[in-house]
């Protein structure tokens, strides 16, 4: 590691994705390293600017505090070896299969409660638990149609699950578009690499959604249901609809008549069989759920109950990606799969257990505390980076609402080089792979590598100033 672009690069004892402990590039990264090292800082700056322009022109922006920003993108890809990927894929399929079966069981026979795998209080106290789903069996008994599982690597390079996202995981469009722009602005990086393609991801999702249509529908009609352009992820909704070749509908474009859902078209009413929805459970149907919802379709849940439409992801799956339920997932996997979980987790403390709570309150400085229903990096306390005041505030919040919080050991996420200010600097990263689940679970061969751009930061969410990298799953 002697090239000028890397002259300020320090490993500092963390696990580095690109370099080994002797600061030599790892095998997979060797070609990339020598290619990048031969480039000047000005060339890399120019390419970075070009990539930024691509995002802005495409309108790929993320709103943050009400303003639109281009999604920051780092040009040095993150590589995953073929053997690592084969193992990860199997582990992810195992996890998502178990979570899907868990949802089916929770709203059905509740064997897992009877057999003591998960306590009843744990289930019914989940914010994502939806009483309206009890006894309801979605088409094909499929609950989780698209999952985004957040993975990190610890100090030793061991993969661990950080959290599960089953309801409306976002980022699949970035996986596809990061690759598109990478090819456009940095084509020479691909020299000597055989990379798995990701542009089939929307079609893979469409296949899964079609396979989950109500029984007996020969040629299912699919729509994407969006809250509309005001939503931060609207770009993704329109991108997925376009790539899947299906209409992008708002709630007001749909209407229920005689136990069927229809689209209002220029020619009249068109029946709909599958809805990939990007609005929250509670807003789906003002008749059955939140009455003040302006985004949903009155009567939709009645059609769903009659089995005449598939809602993807099924309402109520929030019970399985709750941050406290996470602590039970290894047992859930053992119970439904009859095998040991392949992926490690991060040690987690439940605030409703007195011992756990006492330990956490005594050790806030070294732990991470999260709100169980928080998202986007909000409602998090990173103990080692916190002030005494913040710790006091979280201690109070935990006392007030123990079910609302969990604590985890602070994991030093692995780091990777990120081009900042004309040089490469090490930043913490994670990985969100996507799993589609129709007839069977399939992993998109790539993922969203998110980068914490702030020095030392462990929070990679785009709403917290995070960026992303293209993720290359190697063919061999």
């Amino acid at each position, binding site marked *: 590691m002697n090239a000028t672009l890397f002259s300020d690069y320090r490993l500092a004892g963390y696990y580095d994705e690109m370099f080994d402990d002797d600061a030599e590039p790892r095998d997979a990264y060797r070609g990339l390293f020598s290619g990048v090292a031969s480039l000047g800082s000005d060339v890399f700056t120019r390419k970075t600017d070009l990539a930024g322009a691509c995002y802005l022109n495409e309108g790929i922006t993320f709103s943050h505090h009400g303003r639109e920003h281009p999604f920051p993108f780092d040009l040095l890809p993150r590589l995953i070896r073929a053997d690592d990927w084969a193992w990860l894929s199997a582990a992810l399929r195992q996890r998502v299969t178990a979570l899907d079966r868990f949802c089916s069981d929770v709203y059905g026979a509740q064997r897992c409660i009877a057999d003591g795998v998960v306590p009843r209080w744990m289930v019914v106290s989940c914010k994502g638990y939806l009483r309206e789903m009890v006894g309801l069996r979605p088409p094909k008994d499929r609950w989780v149609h698209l999952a985004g599982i957040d993975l990190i690597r610890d100090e030793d390079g061991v993969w661990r699950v950080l959290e599960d996202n089953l309801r409306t995981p*976002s980022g699949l469009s970035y996986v596809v578009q990061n690759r598109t722009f990478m090819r456009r602005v940095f084509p020479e990086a691909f020299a000597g690499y055989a990379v798995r393609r990701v542009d089939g991801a929307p079609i893979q999702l469409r296949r899964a959604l079609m396979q989950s249509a109500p029984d007996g529908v020969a040629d299912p009609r699919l729509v994407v249901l969006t809250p509309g352009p005001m939503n931060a992820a609207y770009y993704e909704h329109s991108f997925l609809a376009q790539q899947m070749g299906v209409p992008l509908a708002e709630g007001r474009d749909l209407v229920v008549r005689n136990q069927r859902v229809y689209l209002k078209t220029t020619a009249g009413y068109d029946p709909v069989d599958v809805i990939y929805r*990007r609005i929250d459970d509670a807003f789906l149907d003002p008749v059955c759920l939140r009455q003040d919802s302006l985004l949903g379709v009155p009567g939709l849940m009645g059609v769903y109950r009659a089995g005449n439409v598939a809602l993807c992801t099924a309402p109520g799956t929030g019970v399985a990606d709750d941050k406290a339920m996470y602590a039970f997932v290894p047992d859930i996997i053992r119970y439904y799969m009859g095998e040991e979980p392949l992926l490690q987790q991060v040690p987690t403390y439940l605030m409703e257990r007195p011992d756990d709570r006492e330990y956490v309150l005594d050790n806030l400085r070294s732990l991470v505390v999260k709100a169980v229903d928080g998202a986007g990096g909000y409602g998090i306390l990173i103990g080692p980076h916190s002030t005494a005041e913040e710790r006091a505030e979280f201690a109070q919040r935990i006392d007030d609402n123990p079910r609302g919080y969990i604590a985890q050991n602070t994991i030093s996420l692995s780091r990777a080089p990120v081009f900042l200010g004309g040089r490469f600097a090490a930043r913490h990263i994670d990985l969100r792979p996507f799993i589609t689940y129709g007839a069977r679970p399939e992993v998109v061969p790539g993922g969203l590598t998110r980068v914490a751009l702030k020095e030392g930061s462990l929070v990679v969410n785009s709403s917290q100033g995070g960026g992303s990298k293209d993720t290359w799953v190697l063919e061999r």
Partner: protein
Amino acid sequence: MSAMLARVADSLYWTARAIERADTYARLLEVSHAMSRESADTQAGDRSVWEPLVDITGDLEAFRRTHVHVNETSAVWFLSFADENPNSIISCITRARNNAQSVRDLLPTEVWEALNTVYLELSSWPPGRLGRGGVYPFSRQVRRAVHLLHGLVDGSMRRDATWHFLRLGRFAERADKVARLLEVKYRLVLPEEAALVPGTEFHQWRSLLRSGGADEAYVKLATGKDSPRELVQLLVVDDKFPRSIVFCLDQIAESLRHLVWAGDIAEAHNALSLVAQTRAELSRDVPSINGSLATAMDHVQLRCNQIHAALAESCFAYAPGYEGGAWHAQAAGQPQN
């Protein structure tokens, strides 16, 4: 393939209308600016150039609410960058871009990119540049962007409902604005509806041709007599000239027939019979420059409104967005983990 969402058809139609309107206004600004250069008397220029310009846009009343005098500075600003004018070029481009964003799943990526790019470029224009550099660079940039958009739309899109609704918007807007242009300019040149003395106001008529983008086509056709009669022929009834009213009506009719044929809209469509009726009226009584032109153009605008209303009633019928912030707040607040 089944029919398109009513809301989406409406958005496409208005996207195209807003783009066409920006193009028209850019051209009008440029021509007016050129005309006023050669007028020695500033006040006369304000009356003969800038006031009619604002009048053509149909927003003179709105203009008077925020401005006292119609002069070069106020008119140029009002038509280019004024946020308070919903029909200024920047408002049109912004609306087109926002509309396109709501239907971007149907538009080719390049079309969206071109629209977003011109939006971003215009948004970053320093306001003082129009005064310093004249309107030409601005107008040229807008018109080039519009040409690029038309080229991309026509060159890359399948002739399906998406394309036809875009075409409907583009030509409905164009027919309406050509009629409006002719009406206002005619009243200006012949305030008493007296007979036109060829040559006296030729300067005005030529500028009208330029405003309608018909200058060069006219020169090729003209027999050398420079008769306004040929001008009306060209801008109203020439079915081979893409900026004539009849040409626009033919395009609208063709798209409507396609949509009916493909089952995208209901058969025996009101709009279709209205278009046929208007076209017949124009061909039967070619409006003469002496007397009937203004009335005829007024009538064409009325017909354009009726055609639009027929479309809105039959194919753009959907629940409107909810008023107020609650809807936006709910949409914005949907978690996307």
